């Protein structure tokens, strides 16, 4: 079973990336992927007029219950409102985790607002997907401080360091057992092989970052890493499923 651990949908009027869930589900079909974790591009809570990004994701998951799970993409800078929204998402709406994109909201990843929000996620055993690329606030050595501040939280480094910081991401994951690396967008199959060799196949998670990044191409990238058998199965689906099984909404 292939599970895409990082994909997007978006319905914000005027957004340059307007991606309905039907588009993502069609690409999952094309790639032979059974399920995807979806989130918006915008952070909630926010000032979006009548548009509610959390409800958009919840509605998509209701429409495609066998295909989509939701992550709440939140802005920790909203303080208690973000923490309460996460509690509602996981406790009432069936969301499976938290997505953070520190480059978007421009906060240090180990600042008090973020640490508090991540600790809420950890209290539910909900995984936290972090954008981990080449930009300020998101590089692996910056996220390392969050991993150490919240050792009880499960952190998934989306893009596993981007174009230029994969080796740092592998080093951070080696140092922090609560860190997993996620493969989307990063263009080097051999870096996936290197991560599996260094960390073991149970610490690497497949994702596409679709629909912008093509899920079929992203699956091929993992296959080009030379993984086979149980290691390939783990990366393509079993690892993220194991993390989601730990979820305990109160």
């Amino acid at each position: 079973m292939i599970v895409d651990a990082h994909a997007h949908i978006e319905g914000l009027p005027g957004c340059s990336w307007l991606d309905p869930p039907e588009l993502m589900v069609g690409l999952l079909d094309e790639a032979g992927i059974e399920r995807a974790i979806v989130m918006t591009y915008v952070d909630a809570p926010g000032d979006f007029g009548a548009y509610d990004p959390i409800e958009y994701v919840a509605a998509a998951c209701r429409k495609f219950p066998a295909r989509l799970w939701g992550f709440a993409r939140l802005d920790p800078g909203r303080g208690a409102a973000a923490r309460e929204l996460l509690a509602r998402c996981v406790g009432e709406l069936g969301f499976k985790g938290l997505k953070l994109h520190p480059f978007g909201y421009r906060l240090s990843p180990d600042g008090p607002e973020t640490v508090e929000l991540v600790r809420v996620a950890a209290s539910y055993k909900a995984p936290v997907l972090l954008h981990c690329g080449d930009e300020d606030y998101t590089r692996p050595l910056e996220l390392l401080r969050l991993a150490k501040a919240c050792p009880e939280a499960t952190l998934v480094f989306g893009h596993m360091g981007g174009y230029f910081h994969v080796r740092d991401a592998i080093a951070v994951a080696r140092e922090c057992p609560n860190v997993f690396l996620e493969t989307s967008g990063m263009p080097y199959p051999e870096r996936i092989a290197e991560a599996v060799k260094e960390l073991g196949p149970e610490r690497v998670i497949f994702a596409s970052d679709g629909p912008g990044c093509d899920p079929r191409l992203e699956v091929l990238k993992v296959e080009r890493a030379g993984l086979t058998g149980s290691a390939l199965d783990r990366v393509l689906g079993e690892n993220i499923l194991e993390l989601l099984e730990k979820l305990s909404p109160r």
Partner: protein
Amino acid sequence: MSAIDFHVHVGASLYGGGLGVAELLRRMERLEIERAVVIAPKPPGYCLEPENRRLRELAEARPDRFVAFCRVDPWQRERAVAEAASCLAGAGAMAGLFLHPWEEGFAANDPVVDPVVEVARRARKPVMIAGGHARVSLAPQVADLVGRFPDVTFVVTSGGQINISGVALGEARRLFLEHPNTVLETSGIYRLDFIEDMAGEIGASRIVFGSDAPRFDQELELRRVQWAHRSDEDREAFARGTARRLLGVDSSQ
């Protein structure tokens, strides 16, 4: 579908590894790549002239499979101009000029670049430039350069943006929209839908497949254009048609 790979580095690299001719040919056979544009990596000895000679001889020996571009370091000033002039003229002239602002350490729009581009302009040869690198070849910097040479065709690698957050996509889009003398090369590009969307905006005839092997995986990069959600005609242009036009290679050759 066959293809032309517009961007391959052949030889040993200062940064480790490298791709040999025999291995490249094996990969081309397997992937049905009919031709490759071959370019020197930054060699362990830092000296580009012998590498250009080696690749010029390779293209002369195997014109059915290889086309060679000349790589120069503009910081070598008069020496770079002389090398470009030598490579781009005469019998067996190389097919274009290659510039790598990141590896050679110059800003794409630094005046030091102009004399070597002027050589390509006089020779009526395209210039390929490694795009998207922070501080040296971000899309606005490349736009500044290409705007100074509107009669030179510039092939901008990686779609002019190497950024996994998508924040560089807007400036890259403007580069190609505002400068019709640019061609978008696809290696390692963030978001396949950027290629798909740009095909709708600038036309498939200004998009060319390049793998930037061995830095990027040649098969993955080829599938990037072959699996694009565009028409068969557009995918053919990405994979081969645009390259043929740029290189002056017709379908019978």
